[in-house]
């Protein structure tokens, strides 16, 4: 598959954006600038990037608790994301959601999700909506290895395959569900095997190789657009940080993280780009600086924004009913 330089540069930009946003968020969290549960995606950037680069603006995604990367890759605005991490009223969810619940309906982002496994069926439902309306959109469903032990995984794949729905299931296999390694949570190593039970294509790719992800997902998206149903794509990758910020990661075998850091998807892509004259070092540096500035702009925006007025707490529960105010 020939991938244009333009696409490669776009993917590079997305990956760096995710990395820099996350590194900044990590430091801000450590400084106590905001609280809550923050699950970082550092190390897994090639997955979200390769997937979302295969999608159109009008396609949908469902995300997870570890959603920042998906949202950035699908076109989320760093300013509104950072403001949401701070719980500010300019944030994507007006401060009601926080890191775990960022959504942007205008970009087809059907939401990060705090319930492990909730996305499988929601993505299937979005695909049902697409099929019903007869458009050629698709929905990509992100989920972790450990979520494939929820009944929703099996229900969603079964329904999607039976009804030939335009959904692409993206398993981010980072080897763990919190502290429990894959070998301790399921008796298989390749989650793509599970596609067999639903008679759909299932493939495993190197999730730290953005080209491999892009190619596999592009093919699956093409099938889905043609009405040929879902695909299960397993991307093997690794999270560098703890499960959430503050996790002491006692469960990691010594040396495992270091091994994976050698497979960092970003330098890998940089090397390719330099060797194939996609970009010069100087151009890359410039792009990096531009992204640094974007991240700083997001932090400034978030810090300058105000916290939501408490009266907003009772809004958005329904479209039409606003609960009586602070009457207990």
């Amino acid at each position: 598959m020939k991938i244009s330089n333009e696409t490669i540069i776009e993917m590079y930009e997305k990956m760096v954006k995710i990395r820099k946003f996350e590194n900044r968020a990590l430091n801000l969290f450590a400084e106590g600038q905001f609280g809550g549960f923050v699950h970082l995606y550092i190390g897994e950037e090639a997955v979200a990037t390769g997937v979302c680069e295969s999608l159109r603006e009008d396609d949908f995604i469902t995300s997870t608790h570890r959603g920042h990367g998906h949202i950035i890759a699908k076109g989320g605005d760093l300013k509104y994301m950072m403001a949401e991490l701070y719980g500010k009223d300019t944030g994507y969810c007006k401060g009601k959601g926080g890191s775990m619940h960022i959504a942007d309906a205008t970009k087809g982002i059907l939401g990060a999700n705090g319930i492990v496994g909730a996305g499988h069926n929601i993505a299937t439902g979005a695909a049902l909506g697409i099929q019903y309306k007869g458009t050629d959109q698709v929905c990509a469903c992100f989920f972790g290895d450990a979520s494939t032990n929820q009944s929703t995984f099996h229900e969603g794949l079964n329904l999607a395959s039976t009804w030939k729905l335009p959904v692409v299931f993206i398993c981010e296999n980072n080897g763990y569900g919190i502290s429990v390694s894959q070998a301790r949570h399921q008796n298989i190593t390749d989650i793509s095997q599970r596609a067999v039970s639903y008679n759909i294509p299932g493939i495993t790719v190197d999730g730290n190789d953005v080209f491999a992800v892009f190619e596999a997902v592009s093919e699956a998206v093409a099938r889905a657009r043609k009405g040929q149903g879902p695909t299960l794509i397993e991307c093997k990758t690794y999270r560098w940080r703890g499960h959430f910020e503050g996790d002491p990661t006692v469960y990691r075998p010594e040396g495992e993280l270091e091994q994976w850091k050698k497979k960092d998807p970003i330098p890998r892509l940089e090397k390719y780009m330099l060797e194939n004259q996609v970009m010069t070092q100087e151009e890359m540096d410039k792009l990096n600086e531009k992204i640094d500035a974007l991240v700083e702009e997001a932090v400034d925006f978030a810090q300058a924004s105000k916290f939501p007025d408490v009266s907003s707490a009772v809004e958005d529960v329904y479209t039409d009913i606003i609960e009586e105010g602070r009457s207990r």
Partner: protein
Amino acid sequence: MRELTYGQGIKEGMRIKMLENPDVFIFGEDVGLFGGCFGVTAGLFEEFGEKRVRDTPISEGAIIGAAVGAAAVGLRPIPELMFVDFATVGMDQLVNQAAKMRYMFGGKLKLPMVVRLPSGGGVAAAAQHSQSLEAWFTHVPGLKVVYPSNAQDAIGLMLSAIDDDNPVIYLENKTLYAVASQVEDEVKPIPLGKANIKREGSDVTIITYGKQVYDSLKAAEMLEKDGIDVEVVDLRSLYPLDTEAIFESVKKTHKVVIVSEEAKRGSYAGEVAAIIADECFYECDAPIKRVCALNTPIPFSGNLEAYVLPNADDVVQAVKSLF
């Protein structure tokens, strides 16, 4: 006496029974190697081994369901769900299976199991990790429900819950895990259905449990300055309910405020109010008040969350409205 945190109390209750009875065992997500998301089971994996302290896959249906099956064949499992919010995922196993099997089968089975469910807000965990869902469980015939507020009660209620031959929902407030309090050297089981008068008073009864015990005691102190003498009843056990203790207190004070962290609509607090209205209406000389959270999901942002959840000031206001 000695000092223990609430979390340590929960663990001690489980540990005593595990030492005593090899049929008692624990399983749940990250309860083993990791020691539990809130550290409650820390050290038990090392002490009792993987057979009795098991990490499960992320499968709440299987966690509750496996507890039902294991209990049905004679074990006394203690499944843990990481957050009460995830009970939704295992709800069929809890509501249609655990709660009903004994009755449907004409009393042929016993299901001794204790389901541990960390509850409540106040930790910026947002809408899907902060709920107070006790009304769902108390609504279902076949389930018992307890909710300790301190280390001593955590131990005593755990001992009774594990010995009970019925499914017991053991709710824990996650803001209390690190709160230390004095505990007797040897804690006796606290029978399910026994409330605890945390503070005696003659002017008004506050009925509460869990974290709101602290808010209510704080409110009682504030009200004392205004010359209002408050009695605070910690229910500890939501079902069975110590109606005797409630009625006795109401007959003394003639005024009642019920405090819980639930969304007010359809709350367990409403059930307590209804029971008092049914049985004790003529003893009340003011409306029965509930202080609960607003009827919204729990928001992320700190100021919104604080606004939605009830606090000591809300309790003070509610009490004052009765005078």
